[in-house]
């Protein structure tokens, strides 16, 4: 594998990407610590299953099932959003990136903060006031028709499935590395648990699993940071000095080169991470769980503080502590002189070095909880799109009762889980990192433009939203396939058709431009009836009102 591929793999491993590669490289080498980790895993599983049974007793309607009855407070939802966003690989991958000498880590942690600002200022309130169960419903309030529902559902499913598959494969790899269980068993275990949470307690169980995970993760990061800083007398400069000595000893003064040498790639990565975050369906549906717009906004602010703080400690304390205390330790290196488990395992090793096997077990268990929380949220989003948008609205024309809606959601959950298991096994050790980049790029290129234009641009027409959405969806996928990561790295062609690994800077503006041009030249542009619909929805989007089920204005 050339340096570019390796760097890209580690870079995308921030989400979960290159875990399979590390798993293959060192399967079982950390598994010696399995007994403590396994007991911690058991505790996490017991607590989360107990929460699901508790939630199941409180779910009485489709509204409860899809949105936890819109009774989640802003603070709770903020914790759940941060739990939903900070995946296991954020925890492992961000530290791993810096450990491997990749400065992109700072783009990864800084860009989502802009995404959160966009969510708060432009998306949270209208989404909360207009939506009921899925993001597609918000667009469908303005533009009727099955084509919109089909596009919205497929776009949501594309993003969710790619993200879910990557999480599943990564989770299996993590379990393989930490406790030594085979890949397929690990996939089935994680998928079975996620299905149990969602089937039993729907959004309420998912929310509480995410809250528990967020609290554990924050506690874990604070504890590790305090111990690491304690070793250098709480002097950050001393920590950086130690890290500097280690990296100079490893890499020498030349230091190699970056995978993000092109400004286009760097900007494009930032665009995908910022705008993609504001288009991720599993984050957007969280706004339906709060009682009103004020709580929706409060939840984003809470999430922003938590995510910004945790990322700060992860990159600027834990990653450098890992370099200072883990790098070049002979007992942690494999036969080839690399860190056991690869760079993504740096924070796990750091826990072992700083706090022995008990702390290592705790950190491993928190990482496992992180995986469970994220896959549960993704399953909610995917099953919601499949059940509500495709089955209830497209196939049954919306004429489905409350009980049948919940039943269809449960069937959709089983289907999503089956797909996650199948893909998780099939894609073992494959280039799943590209699926994650696909998820963020598609979210930024298809979901975000369509949602923003539908809420804010009165000139948008039905044809414009469909063309813009499809161009964003298909264009982003094609540009990723034609880029160096897949066209050269996977398909083996000598030159890429599209020269950049991150295409969001091209595909997102393309989607906006297409939607604008098609709408502008559409005969129904400035149609009075459409303008009245837009005005009514705009009024409703800004209205401060309690939770209720919105009705179409047509």
């Amino acid at each position: 594998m050339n340096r570019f591929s390796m760097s890209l793999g580690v870079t995308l491993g921030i989400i979960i990407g290159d875990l399979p590669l590390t798993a293959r490289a060192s399967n079982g080498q950390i598994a010696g610590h399995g007994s403590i980790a396994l007991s911690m895993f058991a505790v996490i599983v017991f607590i989360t299953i107990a929460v699901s049974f508790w939630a199941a007793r409180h779910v009485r309607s489709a509204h409860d099932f899809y949105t936890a009855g819109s009774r989640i407070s802003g603070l709770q939802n903020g914790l759940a959003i941060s739990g939903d966003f900070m995946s296991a690989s954020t925890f492992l991958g961000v530290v791993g990136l810096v450990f491997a000498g990749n400065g992109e880590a700072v783009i990864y942690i800084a860009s989502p903060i802009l995404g959160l600002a966009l969510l708060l200022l432009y998306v949270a309130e209208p989404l909360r006031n207009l939506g009921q169960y899925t993001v597609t419903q918000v667009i469908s309030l303005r533009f009727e028709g099955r084509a919109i529902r089909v596009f919205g559902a497929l776009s949501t499913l594309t993003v969710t499935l790619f993200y879910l598959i990557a999480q599943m494969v990564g989770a299996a790899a993590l379990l393989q590395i930490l406790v030594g269980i085979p890949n397929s068993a690990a996939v089935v275990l994680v998928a079975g648990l996620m299905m149990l949470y969602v089937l039993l307690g729907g959004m309420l169980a998912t929310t509480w699993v995410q809250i528990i995970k967020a609290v554990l993760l924050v506690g874990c990061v604070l504890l590790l940071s305090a111990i690491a800083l304690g070793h250098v007398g709480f002097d950050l400069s001393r920590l950086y000095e130690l890290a500097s000595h280690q990296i100079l000893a490893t890499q020498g003064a030349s230091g190699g080169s970056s995978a993000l040498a092109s400004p286009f790639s760097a900007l494009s990565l930032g665009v995908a991470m910022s705008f993609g975050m504001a288009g991720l369906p599993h984050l957007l549906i969280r706004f339906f769980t709060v009682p009103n717009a004020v709580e929706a906004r409060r939840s984003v602010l809470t999430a922003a503080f938590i995510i910004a703080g945790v990322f700060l400690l992860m990159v600027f304390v834990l990653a450098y502590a890992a370099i200072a205390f883990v790098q070049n330790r002979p007992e942690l290196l494999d036969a080839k002189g690399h860190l056991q488990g690869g760079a993504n395992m740096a924070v796990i090793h750091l826990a072992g070095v700083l706090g022995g096997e008990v702390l290592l077990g705790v950190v491993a268990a928190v990482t496992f909880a992180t995986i469970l929380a994220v896959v549960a949220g993704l399953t909610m989003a995917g099953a919601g799109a499949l059940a509500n948008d495709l089955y209830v609205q497209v196939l049954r024309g919306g004429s489905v009762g409350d009980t049948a809606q919940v039943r269809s959601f449960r069937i959709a959950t089983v289907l999503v889980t089956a797909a996650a298991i199948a893909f998780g096994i099939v894609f073992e050790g494959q280039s799943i990192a590209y699926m994650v980049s696909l998820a963020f790029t598609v979210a930024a290129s298809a979901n975000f433009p369509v949602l923003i234009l539908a809420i804010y641009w009165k000139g948008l027409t039905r044809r414009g939203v469909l063309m813009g959405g499809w161009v964003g969806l298909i264009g982003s996928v094609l540009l990723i396939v034609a880029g160096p990561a897949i066209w050269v790295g996977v398909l083996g062609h000598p030159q890429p058709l599209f020269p950049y690994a991150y295409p969001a800077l091209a595909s997102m503006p393309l989607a906006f431009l297409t939607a604008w041009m098609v709408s502008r030249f559409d005969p129904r542009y400035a149609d009075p009836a459409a303008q009245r619909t837009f005005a009514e929805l705009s009024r409703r989007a800004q209205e401060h009102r309690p939770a209720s089920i919105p009705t179409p204005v047509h």
Partner: protein
Amino acid sequence: MSLVNRNLRRSLLAFCTAVYAAGMITIIEVARGSPLRVITDVKYALAAYCCVVISCIGSMLLFSRRVAGSSETIS
């Protein structure tokens, strides 16, 4: 909202945007550098990250207080 308040908010938004842009430019520059710069430029990256966070959360606090159609504010 008075004109003074509106102008003040616009100025603050412009300031936040400038701080954000400066932070992101620095971050991208560090990210594009060699792995060695991950160490040597860590304090610049830390400062830039703080700029980004403060500008984004500042904008969120500045502009999220008003709830249209009501006088309710986020405390």
